């Protein structure tokens, strides 16, 4: 019986060891393809700005439909994509959306609106 109990203890410890040092809390945000889109933007040889915008808009609808929270920088990046296609109205709207959801972004969003809105 001791042996069995000890084996169980061993198995439990193995599980703990495999699990690592910290249990991760549930995700705060819904990311969808955001990181891939940021990567595509930086590589700039994979997808056109139009295609990137469309992916971001589709993901945004998925996030909103499921009641998830849009991650930091998401609106702002979408605004940048619109801005690069000359759509300054959408650029402003998305920067305002970022600022509204994340007041921490205010200084930078205002800087961008001042400098790129012309």
């Amino acid at each position: 019986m001791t042996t069995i109990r000890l084996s169980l203890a061993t198995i439990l410890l193995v599980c703990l060891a495999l699990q690592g040092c910290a249990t991760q809390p549930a995700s705060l945000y819904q990311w969808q393809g955001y990181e891939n889109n940021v990567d595509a933007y930086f590589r700039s040889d994979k997808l056109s700005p139009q295609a990137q915008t469309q992916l971001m808009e589709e993901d945004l609808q998925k996030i909103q439909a499921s009641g998830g929270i849009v991650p930091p920088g998401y609106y702002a990046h979408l605004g940048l994509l619109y801005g690069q296609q000359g759509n300054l109205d959408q650029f402003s709207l998305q920067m305002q959306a970022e600022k509204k959801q994340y007041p921490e972004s205010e200084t930078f969003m205002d800087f961008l609106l001042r400098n790129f809105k012309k």
Partner: protein
Amino acid sequence: MSWEKYTKVLAAAFVFLIMTGCATKPPFDYTAYKENYPRSILVLPPLNNTPEVQASYSVLSHATRPLAEAGYYVMPVTLVAEAFKENGMTQPADMHATSADKLQKIFGADAALYITITKYGTVYRVINSETLVTAEAKLVDLKTGKLLWTGVASASSEEQQSQQHGGLAGLLITAIVNQVIASTLDQSHQIAKNSTTRLLSAGLYNGVLYGPRSPNFGKDGKID
């Protein structure tokens, strides 16, 4: 050795592994971090000390998620890069050399994260080729210029392969398959994700602390 004794030794070994596994380094001093607790973090495009051109933006594209999930607002990385470009800066070294005061004025972030990539890419060998990404980071308070936190992390393709036992033939097949995958550069990007997530996630020993947007804010060290 009897089975019972063997089990006892094994159990003891695992307890030892768990206790030493995470905590081999002395604990980081979080005094300055806690005195200047940042709400928002500006991640500067990483300094790349490797020959691989894609390294900087590959790591940067993975940096937002772990920090945001840790509970911080992360300045939009693509717009940060564009803002620097508008000011005539395309090299991460120039961006890193910008004064804390100026960064604070433009971006309004509480702290800046300076990442340096020291290893990025694949080393080809006969039996196995290894993809390795190593990055270090410094978190600096932009109001006082104080260093809040520093850390280093690596990730390797070998971590996934070390469990495979297939004899020499198996090893050779793995090596060929790996070289094909690795040559696409996408493997490096994937390993960069593991490395960056390890470097910038909260809840890890000597890692960044949970930020104000996390339900675990202020509970570091109490939930491990």
